[in-house]
């Protein structure tokens, strides 16, 4: 492929290009579209939940369906919306922030995306094939092992495939950040978002395998009659809970750390100040990740682990407040004395601080074990985690897209619509979830299909539902904004925000090779350094030379498709042995694709110096 081939394509060619792309910027687009789609899906499920709970003993949906909806809402939002959107932002920004032309493993990058996508599709196929999983996103055994139908089987296979994709993504970012930094970009000069990606990837690397094994055990119990969670044969259901939360707690930091990183970048950019306490921020990130592995049992305080284990985990959990507090105060100190511009990206970031702080506060409250005997499995916990997830992760994702949209798509999002979206969502968010703290303490457990009359829960639930609709309006406005920007939006300059980091030193959107010449980093916030020294642009670290690029490949798509088919085989072989054909067939496709990949040399191609020079003249 040469430069000419990437310009002006027909529709079919564009699709083909996306199906085979290994370019991290296009994969970022794919993650954005995929994650955005699932976010809407999860949001619609949230609306169904809230409509059902608008009044007592409502029968908008049936009891069984309600359980399917909450399960899919939780699973979809966490695995198929929040994480992919974050991976999208990472793909869009990290290679640019470290001055790299690509990620370390472009092929695996694409494979990771397709595994996620096919896993997500597989999971959602359950809606049309006899019912979705209904044991909660936590799928506690033995409810999950005894759940009739194939719902939970779809959960197992879907998450297994999507999870493999995430793991691959994690390793890819680790190696990218270690090996591909441009000259001068030392670790302690990396932007905080890159740091956060690095630490998050470590979390992914060590957390996901526990889920993988948990899902295998669940799969063996459900599909092959093993006895891990079968109490009559000596099984122990608590193993699932441990495995799930050994993964699950780090997972929530996987959701929050990247946005911590991007908020750091945003606050610093729009305050025109360098990040206050950079070193402390980096170590706080690592400390959160480290402690994050030692607190999982705080989800299991009522399981009966005994007071010793409970208090140890309780105190370890509270300790996380310390590094997180460091972050909150450093952000405030970053803005202190700055010259603050408030635009949409900044609004979402400013909205984040009080919202997340409330969520963190309730986090510490549920971490006090004897109080958690009351909070656990009630709407108080629902309120806690939506405050951190929506007020943290989702606000962060919106902020991140407003911030990087110009770089990703070459257009600037409309400010007016951005503000409308923020305010409706922000107000709706607090309406929905603040009241839930009280609902929980007033005796409303979570995962309740109906709440009863005369329990003084009516008004709170009503307000909560109204709030959810405000949020929906906010989301819709954002989506309109996104589409509008592509049609009529203002073309983005290379550096719309007077940025500080490397991604703003190249055109928006960047050429497919990112940096014509690798930039030389001379300090933290490299672009800012050049600006203050009056250069305004990066000094190249190398002479113009040919650039090596990887080839596109259709193999990742085929491999994922193979696993997708095999997934169906696994699910249905319990009904009929004929499905073993799908199982082995799918595996053969995946393995075949893998062998093709390893037998055929894929050396990539080179962009010649002449081509690059010609490009410069255009």
């Amino acid at each position, binding site marked *: 492929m040469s430069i000419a081939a990437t310009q002006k394509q027909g529709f079919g060619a564009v699709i083909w290009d996306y199906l085979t792309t290994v370019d991290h910027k296009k994969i970022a687009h794919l993650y954005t579209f995929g994650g955005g789609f699932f976010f809407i899906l999860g949001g619609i499920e949230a609306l169904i939940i809230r409509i059902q709970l608008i009044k007592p003993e409502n029968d908008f949906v049936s009891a069984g369906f309600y359980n399917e909806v909450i399960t899919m809402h939780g699973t979809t939002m966490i695995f198929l919306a929040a994480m992919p959107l974050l991976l999208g932002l990472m793909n869009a920004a990290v290679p640019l922030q470290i001055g790299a032309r690509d990620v370390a493993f472009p092929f695996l990058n694409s494979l990771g995306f397709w595994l996620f996508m096919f896993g997500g599709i597989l999971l959602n196929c359950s809606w049309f094939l006899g019912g979705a999983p209904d044991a909660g996103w936590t799928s506690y055994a033995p409810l999950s092992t005894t759940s009739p139908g194939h719902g939970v089987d779809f959960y197992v296979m879907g998450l297994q495939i999507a999870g493999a994709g995430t793991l691959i993504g994690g390793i890819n970012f680790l190696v990218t950040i*270690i090996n591909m930094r441009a000259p001068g970009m030392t670790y302690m000069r990396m932007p905080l978002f890159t740091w956060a990606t690095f630490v998050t990837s470590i979390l992914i690397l*060590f957390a996901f395998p526990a889920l993988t094994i948990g899902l295998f055990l669940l799969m063996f119990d459900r599909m092959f009659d093993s006895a891990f969670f079968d109490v009559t044969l000596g099984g122990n259901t608590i193993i699932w809970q441990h495995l799930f939360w050994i993964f699950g707690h780090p997972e929530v930091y996987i959701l929050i750390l990247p946005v911590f990183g991007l908020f750091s970048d945003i606050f610093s950019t729009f305050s025109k100040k360098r990040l206050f306490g950079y070193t402390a921020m980096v170590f706080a990130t690592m400390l959160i990740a480290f402690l994050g592995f030692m607190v999982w049992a705080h989800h299991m305080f009522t399981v009966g682990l005994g007071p010793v284990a409970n208090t140890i985990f309780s105190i370890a959990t509270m300790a996380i407040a310390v590094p997180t507090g460091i972050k909150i105060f450093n952000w405030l100190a970053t803005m202190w004395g700055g010259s603050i511009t408030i635009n949409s990206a900044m609004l979402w970031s400013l909205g984040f601080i009080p919202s997340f702080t409330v969520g963190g506060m309730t986090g510490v409250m549920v971490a006090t074990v004897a109080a958690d005997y009351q909070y656990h499995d009630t709407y108080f916990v629902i309120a806690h985690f939506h405050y951190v997830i929506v007020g943290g992760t989702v606000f962060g994702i919106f902020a991140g897209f407003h911030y990087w949209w110009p770089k990703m798509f070459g257009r600037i999002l409309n400010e007016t619509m951005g503000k409308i979206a923020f305010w409706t969502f922000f107000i709706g968010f607090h309406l929905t979830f603040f009241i839930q703290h009280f609902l929980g303490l007033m005796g409303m457990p979570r995962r309740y299909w109906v709440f009863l009359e005369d329990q003084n829960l009516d008004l709170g639930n009503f307000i909560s539902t109204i709030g959810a609709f405000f949020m929906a309006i906010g989301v819709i406005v954002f989506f309109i904004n996104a589409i509008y920007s592509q049609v009529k939006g203002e073309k983005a300059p290379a550096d719309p925000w007077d940025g500080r980091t490397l991604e703003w030193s190249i055109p928006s959107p960047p050429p497919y090779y990112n940096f014509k010449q690798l930039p030389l980093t001379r300090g933290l916030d490299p672009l800012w350094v050049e600006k203050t020294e009056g250069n305004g642009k990066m000094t190249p670290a190398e002479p113009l030379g040919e650039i090596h690029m990887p080839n596109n490949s259709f193999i990742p798509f085929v491999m994922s498709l193979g696993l997708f088919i095999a997934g169906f085989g696994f699910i249905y072989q319990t009904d009929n042995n004929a499905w073993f054909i799908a199982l082995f067939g799918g595996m053969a496709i995946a393995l075949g694709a893998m062998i093709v990949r390893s037998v055929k040399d894929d050396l990539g191609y080179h962009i010649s110096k002449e081509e690059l020079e010609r490009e410069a003249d255009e």
Partner: protein
Amino acid sequence: MENTNTNKITEYQKQRNKEEMKKQLISFALMIVVTLIAFTIVATGVMEKMFAIPVLLILALIQVAFQYYYFMHMKDKGHEMPSIMIYGGAWAAILTIAGLAVITWW
């Protein structure tokens, strides 16, 4: 695919490889010895259970250290990141095993 390492293979290099190989042979021998000790302890039953289990685990750790540091070259330079990741993994692994093996009891 540029060759960023211009040092050509030399006799000196070969010699060093050979010495390295010798060390690895020694570690192999030690690993065999360690294995033999472990099996002997169990086969002969010379040790109390309470005593045997920690000894077996220590022997396993010794053997694994040989694998990592000699066979997999973790002692060499350029292995800082791999060491961090392996120790990180080991730490997460210890927590996991402790969680599952110790506190599923009540």
